[in-house]
């Protein structure tokens, strides 16, 4: 009757959304542009959503002076923003939404001023929707695997009867309990989730022409509203429902049989239903998004846009243009426009009179984000106890980095190579976890560690960070870059790496954790223009005191 199961889901979601967009918060459509998405948008067109993009100007959103009308009339003309008009909003390229916009849209949803139709074209794993929106949009659709040919009938008109009925549909406490328990089993912390699921269940019952919510409504509601919020398995708290996730299930489970329902508590069944609907890629992206959010305030905008030097434009400020601040012509005109009559500027000559106080300059979000790259020797020569001390020392440095709001990354080298244990982040809990799990042993591939750090430094410079390096080692390099156990080659490679570091991030710190200071390491530090600090015992507090003035620079 209605095409494939995937389309049945689409149909239910669209009908629910159309029933009462503002109660549902919004619908999140993950798909590249294509016929399926076009079809869905056509269906939703009668709702009349106003299209915006993530780089919408604040004034368009919140309202402000209408420059054209103000100039034409010679008096200030204010214009309502999109939010004030109470329309639905269709947010295109939503994966690029910055936190500030996401927060404001989220607040508007909370006030039931708008509902969002979110078009998310996320491609990579590190792209996803900003968390404040994920939390408030009840419905999720992934159209990427759907074929247009499968589409059945979707009727979004004539919903008045269902709307009227919906007001009568009640939820029992058992229903609420089921939804709450299901959400908790899925590791969903936010309380909005079960509330939105409850809204969906009521809507589904109404659409089916019932006055009571039945288990099928709950199930469908959970599939539509909870599945995509479930945390990736590793983040989820211990499964309280005791129901092992059915990882092998590819098919959605069969509709519940009456006899099957008797033995199973409803939430277990709902958890299974949700798990079957879990969009695996999305979960990864959400998990990655969480890390990325902590990493950078301007997340989700793609690496290039995240650059500090350019950054998100901020409202213009009054001020004089200079090298650092460029004139914002529009804002300047806006400031000057209402004055033209008074100043007599807009006379016969039609010349605009600008005064100094009209001048506005452009601003960009420009934080000097420093990235501290810790390069840690985890080799055998750093015997286990020494490694523990080094870890303690790093924790001290980390907390200092944290206090200054620096980002940190962690590179460890041991055996025959080096790896980035922790990509740039501000999440110190995560750093600490990785650090605690850092194993020790093997050779000392110092050069590999430094090259890895240099590569990382190069990458993050492109994203606008200022990298600086903190190397902790006893300096007994014995593994060359190619993995050969050759001390001389190892030393030579280390010097090569040092030259790169010098070019990329001079002025770091080298902490010699050997029992006696190593002249070679001091020379290496010199080659990187780094401070050399012999610390035979990496006593955490002493280290902190010694390093503070150096790192503060």
């Amino acid at each position, binding site marked *: 009757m209605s095409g494939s199961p995937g389309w049945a889901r689409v149909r239910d979601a669209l009908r629910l959304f159309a029933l009462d967009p503002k109660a549902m918060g919004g619908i999140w459509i993950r798909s590249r542009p294509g016929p399926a998405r076009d079809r869905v948008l056509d269906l939703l067109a009668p709702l009349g959503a106003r299209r915006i993009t993530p780089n919408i100007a604040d004034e368009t959103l919140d309202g402000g002076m209408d420059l054209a009308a103000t100039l034409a009339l010679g008096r200030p003309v204010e214009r309502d923003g999109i939010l004030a008009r109470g329309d639905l909003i269709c947010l295109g390229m939503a994966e690029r939404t910055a936190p500030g916009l996401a927060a404001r849209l989220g607040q508007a949803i909370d006030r039931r001023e708008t509902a969002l139709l979110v078009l998310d074209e996320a491609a990579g794993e590190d792209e996803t929707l900003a968390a404040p929106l994920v*939390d408030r949009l009840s419905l999720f659709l992934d159209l990427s695997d759907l074929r247009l040919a499968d589409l059945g009938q979707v009727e979004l008109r004539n919903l008045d009867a269902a709307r009227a009925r919906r007001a009568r549909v009640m939820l029992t406490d058992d229903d609420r309990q089921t939804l709450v328990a299901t959400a908790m089993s899925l590791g969903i912390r936010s309380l*909005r989730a*079960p509330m939105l699921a409850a809204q969906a269940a009521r809507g589904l019952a109404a659409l089916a022409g019932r006055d009571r919510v039945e288990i099928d409504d709950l199930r469908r509601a959970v599939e539509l509203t909870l599945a995509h919020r479930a945390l990736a398995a590793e983040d989820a708290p211990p499964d309280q429902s005791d129901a092992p996730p059915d990882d092998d299930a590819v098919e959605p489970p069969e509709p519940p049989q009456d006899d099957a329902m008797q033995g199973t508590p409803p939430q277990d069944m709902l958890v299974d239903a949700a798990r079957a609907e879990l969009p695996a890629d999305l979960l990864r992206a959400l998990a990655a998004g969480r890390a990325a959010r902590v990493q950078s305030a301007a997340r989700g905008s793609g690496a290039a846009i995240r650059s500090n030097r350019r950054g998100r434009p901020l*409202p213009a400020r009054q001020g004089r243009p200079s090298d650092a601040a460029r004139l914002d012509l529009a804002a300047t005109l806006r400031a000057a426009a*209402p*004055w033209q009559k008074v100043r007599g500027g807009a006379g016969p000559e039609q010349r605009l009179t600008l005064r100094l106080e009209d001048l506005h300059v452009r601003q960009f979000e420009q934080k000097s984000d420093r990235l501290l790259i810790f390069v840690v020797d985890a080799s055998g020569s750093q015997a286990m106890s020494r490694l523990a001390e080094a870890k303690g020392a790093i924790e001290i440095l980390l907390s200092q980095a944290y206090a200054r*709001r620096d980002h940190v990354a962690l590179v460890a080298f041991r055996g025959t190579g080096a790896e980035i244990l922790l990509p740039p982040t501000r999440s110190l809990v995560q750093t600490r976890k990785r650090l605690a799990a850092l194993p020790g042993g093997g050779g000392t591939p110092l050069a590999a560690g430094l090259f890895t750090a240099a590569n990382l430094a190069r990458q993050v410079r492109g994203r606008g960070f200022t990298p600086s390096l903190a190397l902790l080692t006893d300096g007994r390099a014995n593994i060359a870059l190619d993995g050969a156990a050759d001390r001389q080659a190892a030393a030579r490679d280390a010097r090569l790496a040092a030259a790169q570091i010098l070019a990329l991030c001079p002025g770091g710190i080298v902490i010699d954790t050997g029992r006696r200071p190593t002249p070679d390491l001091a020379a290496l530090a010199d080659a990187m223009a780094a401070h050399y600090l012999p610390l035979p015992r990496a006593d955490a507090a002493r280290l902190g005191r010694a390093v503070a003035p150096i790192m503060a620079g």
Partner: protein
Amino acid sequence: MSRTFPFSAIVGQDDMKRAMVLTAIDARIGGVLVLGDRGTGKSTAVRALAALLPKMRVVDGCPVNSARKTDCPDWAEIGSAKIVTRPTPVVDLPLGVTEDRVTGALDIERALTRGEKAFQPGLLARANRGYLYIDEVNLLEDHIVDLLLDVAQSGENLVEREGMSIRHDARFVLVGSGNPEEGELRPQLLDRFGLSVDVTSPQDVGTRVEVMRRRDAFDRDPRSFARHWDAEDTTLREAIVAARKMLPMVETPEEILHDCAAICIALGSDGLRGELTLLRTARAEAAFEGATLIGRDHLRRVAAMALQHRLRRDPMDEAGTAARVDRIVTEVLGPRRAAAE
């Protein structure tokens, strides 16, 4: 604007509610910062507080809510000194707000139509004697934060622009909420909040179901839901009013002063702001309880919210700063006696 959810109907989140009530008793405590999970009712609570607070007396038409005619700024040109009662203002500071809207700016309308250089007050003026609420405070633009810090420090808003020089009182209680996942707060701003509480989603099914049930009932019929909770909100409001009256009578024993100092020294919190806030909060707590003397239990109850955000953050301490405060407080004051409560 839709009706606000009643303060008393908020399920759980006792720390958050208590912190808000205490700042309502003594505004000098200096505001509340609420940090935590999404969907825990942070914003709901702040808006509910506004509806809960007792009305205040202001000069009619005064743009900065002055209590007396003499306090009204000259530029406001208030004619009569008629006093009216108004709800305590809770002013929302939206993200992405412009400096002009915050501090106030030249009134363009009047300048054009009457050729007068008049001041159009901004959000800071409206917030005077009330609350300034910033949702997602950690996402606020830096230059707005700087401006707020400056005004919150001086209690006065100074506008120098477009050839005007205007100043007016801007004493408000900052209330901020945010989700730490979205970004950290600058220490300077953290310090500006008197109290700080963490909120987390309740982890038991019963509580969560109750949250859902009340929200449902509210959405269905806000009016009758509000009526249902009106008595409790009124009781709380009266308790706040009584505590405000009580406040000047609450005595501070010498040993409590010592305790405050000892706790702050043991915690290594910066400056004297921590001690003062701890003392004021404990005094408000005592007043709320109807006690005439600050006791150690009052200190114990409020220490975490008054001090946790003033500590040097130790990101490696998994227990969190609140637990650290509690640990030190127990060390300094000794364990709570069983019969103390």
